[in-house]
């Protein structure tokens, strides 16, 4: 009893301990007791589900058994991914909204498990087992509590109408039967049509549920606008260059568009190949339902506007971090810019801006790269692909030369460093930018170190020239380009006063600022200390041996995947799950035999009270998500590092091990077994050990034992 009371106090205490967003923001964390999905044996759950299914008369038992296996693993994967928030402020709030919606249906309420998913995508999902996931991106975009309520109603109806399981069965049937005499396109259209019907049904049934509440019915219709404009930032705020300007630093207007593009209305787009009806249709359908219904005394907020806005601000703050994780710096910068208008003294927001400025500088210098493995596959989007106010920022990023961007970034970040001298990261970015300037040796002698008259003439000259660049005739363009060449010589003038006050008053800045002849070799020292390793690499093996003594590692969710083309789909799940359990035992046994200390961080191996481990797993997982957002993974700088230091201190090691086996068997009997064991230094952003081997063989126990033992032995005997 006391235990439950304490748990209640803990959970409610968390709910009431609001963050002071005017000053700072602490990334969202799970809290309280972990739900059953963390502790239950999934194979038993599947077994129970199938037993229950067998009791029913059903013609699609075989398909549904596969569905139950796949879905249970899918839900487990999502919940344990480190991206699902449990008992945090946003999830607690969402559950309160569900309480409001289902206040007259407690049975249904008890069947639901509503969680927040740390994803910037504007979306929500529900599963047949009552799991509803609402993305942070969606909450950040919602305009009112009522809109959130309607979206929840929509998802709840997907559950009550069993859309997920029926959709799975019917889609499989379409696939099985559909290809006879039809081309793939027809099958796709048929599947989309089916999906759209279910979505429309959820819209209508969701509305019926929604109208039983006291929420403003019009907000149901407006919620589709949120989805319609999900590609735009959560607010549209004019991007002003003055944000980065200081007394002695005025950015030329030429880097900015005179006017930004309008927002395209594609609400009535062709939805033939979409899983959802277009928003125009959905809005019409809901508008018809609203019709002449009495909407008086209905409200936008039941729980309160203040609370909603606070929760939304939390989501927006978190969104900045999620953009950083995806290395989507322009989006993160714009989001932080919006938040900076509302919370000008929020340290977290300023830090996000600093990170973005710094990252864009590194991108300009070619240190940060994107490739086909990146979320931003083609790098930063062109401003011409962006609509409305954010277009200004993308134009600015695209037009300002890298060296000038570096100066602007340093101007912002160094002053932030002055304000928050104990913030190591900001200090490191500032030092790194100074070194970048030193490395290029660019403009160093141009900077004014003693104050003199303002450089209005120079700025005006540049503005007048840049203003003409927008003209489109060929000859004008050529003439302007010629003038631009002259400007490039002169344009060093507009920023040469930027640091004058720092030169005059800040001894640290003066001491760190590079001299004209001090060409630094390292460009990003003090921030990302990636060192090249001697790598032994062949077609079937890759090895980096540990150079430093490693005595303890954090074992991050040992992985096992077994794929057998000759066996049913569900085999992959159950067999992989069983093998993973054995593999974890093997890994720990091998480490133990060699007296090598490991701490396993695996959301699949926690007790209900170990929410901290889930949070720590999430922090490290975020770190890896950012690191792996490119093919050249070893060199990616990491910006989501704020909480890493705490994890390192807590577990007493900066080394994180990822270890796993992937086994594949084709229908023709071709066998491949892939073994990998990597160790990353999450403090210095470095890979310190890497062993990757491919075998044309089955995943026999002796193979696994030998390789895992070898890995730990090599670590144990590293110098």
């Amino acid at each position, binding site marked *: 009893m006391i235990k439950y009371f304490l748990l209640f106090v803990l959970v409610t205490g968390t709910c009431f301990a609001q963050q002071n967003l005017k000053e700072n923001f602490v990334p969202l964390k799970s809290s309280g007791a972990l739900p059953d999905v963390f502790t239950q044996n999934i194979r038993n759950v599947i077994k129970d589900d199938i037993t229950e299914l067998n009791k029913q008369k059903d013609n699609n038992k075989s398909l549904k058994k596969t569905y139950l296996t796949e879905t249970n693993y899918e839900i487990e994967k999502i919940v344990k991914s480190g991206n699902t928030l449990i008992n945090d402020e946003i999830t607690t709030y969402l559950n309160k909204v569900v309480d409001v919606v289902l206040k007259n249906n407690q049975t249904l309420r008890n069947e639901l498990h509503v969680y927040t998913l740390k994803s910037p995508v504007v979306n929500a999902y529900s599963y047949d087992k009552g799991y509803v996931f609402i993305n942070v991106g969606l909450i950040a975009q919602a305009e009112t509590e009522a809109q959130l309520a309607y979206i929840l109603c929509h998802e709840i109806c997907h559950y009550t109408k069993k859309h997920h399981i029926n959709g799975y069965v019917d889609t499989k049937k379409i696939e099985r039967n559909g290809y006879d005499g039809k081309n793939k396109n027809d099958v796709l259209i048929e599947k989309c049509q089916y999906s759209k019907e279910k979505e429309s049904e959820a819209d209508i049934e969701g509305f019926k549920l929604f109208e039983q509440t006291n929420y403003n019915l019009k907000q149901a219709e407006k919620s589709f606008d949120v989805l319609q404009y999900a590609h735009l930032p959560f607010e549209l705020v004019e991007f002003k260059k003055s944000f980065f300007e200081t007394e002695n630093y005025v950015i030329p207007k030429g880097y900015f568009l005179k006017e930004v593009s309008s927002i395209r209305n594609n609400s009535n787009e062709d939805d033939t190949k979409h899983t959802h009806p277009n928003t125009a249709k959905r809005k019409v359908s809901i508008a018809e339902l609203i019709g002449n219904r009495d909407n008086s005394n209905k409200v936008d907020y039941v729980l309160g506007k203040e609370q909603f806005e606070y929760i939304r601000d939390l989501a927006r703050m978190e969104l900045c971090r999620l953009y950083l994780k995806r290395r989507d710096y322009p989006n993160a910068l714009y989001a932080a810019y919006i938040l900076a208008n509302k919370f000008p003294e929020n340290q977290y927001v300023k830090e996000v801006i600093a990170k973005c400025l710094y990252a864009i500088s590194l991108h300009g210098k070619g240190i940060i790269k994107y490739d086909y493995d990146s979320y931003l596959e083609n790098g930063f989007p062109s401003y011409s692909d962006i609509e409305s106010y954010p277009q200004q920022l993308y134009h600015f990023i695209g037009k300002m030369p890298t060296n000038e961007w570096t100066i602007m970034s340093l101007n912002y970040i160094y002053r932030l460093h002055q304000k928050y001298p104990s913030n190591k990261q900001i200090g490191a970015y500032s030092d790194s930018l100074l070194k970048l300037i030193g490395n290029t040796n660019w403009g160093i002698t141009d900077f004014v170190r003693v104050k003199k008259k303002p450089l209005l003439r120079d700025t005006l000259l540049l503005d007048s020239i840049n203003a003409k660049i927008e003209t489109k005739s060929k000859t004008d363009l050529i003439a302007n380009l010629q003038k631009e060449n002259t400007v490039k010589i002169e344009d060093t003038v507009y920023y040469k006063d930027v640091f004058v006050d720092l030169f005059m008053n800040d001894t640290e800045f003066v001491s760190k600022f590079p001299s004209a002849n001090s060409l630094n070799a390292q460009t990003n020292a003090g921030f990302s200390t990636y060192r090249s390793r001697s790598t032994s690499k062949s077609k079937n093996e890759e090895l980096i041996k540990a150079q430093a003594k490693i005595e303890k590692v954090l074992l991050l969710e040992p992985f096992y995947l077994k794929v057998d083309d000759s066996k049913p789909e569900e085999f992959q799940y159950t067999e992989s799950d069983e093998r993973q359990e054995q593999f974890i035992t093997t890994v720990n046994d091998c480490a133990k*035999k060699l007296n090598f200390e490991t701490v396993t961080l695996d959301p699949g191996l926690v007790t209900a009270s170990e929410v901290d481990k889930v949070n720590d797993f999430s922090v490290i997982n975020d770190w890896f998500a950012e690191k792996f957002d490119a093919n050249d993974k070893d060199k990616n700088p990491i910006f989501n590092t704020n909480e890493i230091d705490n994890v390192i201190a807590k577990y007493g090691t900066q080394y994180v091990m990822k270890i796993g086996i992937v086994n594949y068997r084709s229908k023709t009997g071709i066998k491949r077994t892939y073994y990998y064991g990597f160790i990353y230094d999450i403090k210095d952003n470095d890979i310190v050990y890497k062993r990757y*081997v491919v*075998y044309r063989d089955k995943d026999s126990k*002796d193979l696994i*034992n*030998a390789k895992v*033992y070898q890995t730990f*032995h090599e670590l144990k*005997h590293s110098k």
Partner: protein
Amino acid sequence: MRTRFFILAFIVLNTIVFSQAPGHLGKRFSIGYGFHTSPSVFNANGKNQTIIGRGGSAESGSPAFNAIHELNIEFAASSKWLTCFSARYYKTVYDNAESFNSSQVSGYSIQSSRPEGYYDVRGLTYTLYFKYFGKRYVAPWGRYVMFGPTVNTVKTTYDPSEMNIRAYKYNSSTGTSSDTTLAPFGAKEQDFVGVNLMLGIGRSRIYSNRIILDYGFNIHMFSVLSSLFDVTGNRIGGSPITPANYIESTVKQRIRGVNRFNLFLKIGVLLF
């Protein structure tokens, strides 16, 4: 003296690399039994049978195989190297397929230049060998190549009532000839020693972290190189076979045949 040398070499080689040895889950030392077999190709079989038929001086085309039994000890000296020692034993016969130079038996009229019967051969081969495991494997698990010097010791025995030469003895006083048997092959027990170089390729698997199953093949280099002589029936060195050196000459050919190429299957136990 020889045995002492092998033991000393074994200890020294292992001591050098001892600190690097991981073994399988820490177990480095194993003992095992191995069975080697070779198809009788070039008059290698005791009964002079051959798997390909009519080879060399074969009399029968029946398939036939040699069999060797082995005891071995192996030590994982590093993650790539195993240092091993084995003793292989085989017991066979030589059925006197070769002919000797009949003119060398004076005073007798030789009825057949091939001795009757057979002689027994007991061989013991000591090998100090090393297994080197492939890049992706960890000793003692995985694919490997092996090599090492071998010492072949052979003891032959014959029974004169079985192995002999039928001849006519001419009695000058009576002017008649009588049948008789001769056994001018030297001592009934003879020992021979030879050296060779063993090379092999194999694969070992480990079950229950304890049982090693090892399979592959090996060859003895000098035996392989001398195959041409054995096939054509030419003797190495070219000196003719006489009854006095009959066993010495033929047993070497026999040993080469046994050791030339062998498939093997070994089972071992990882001790510690």
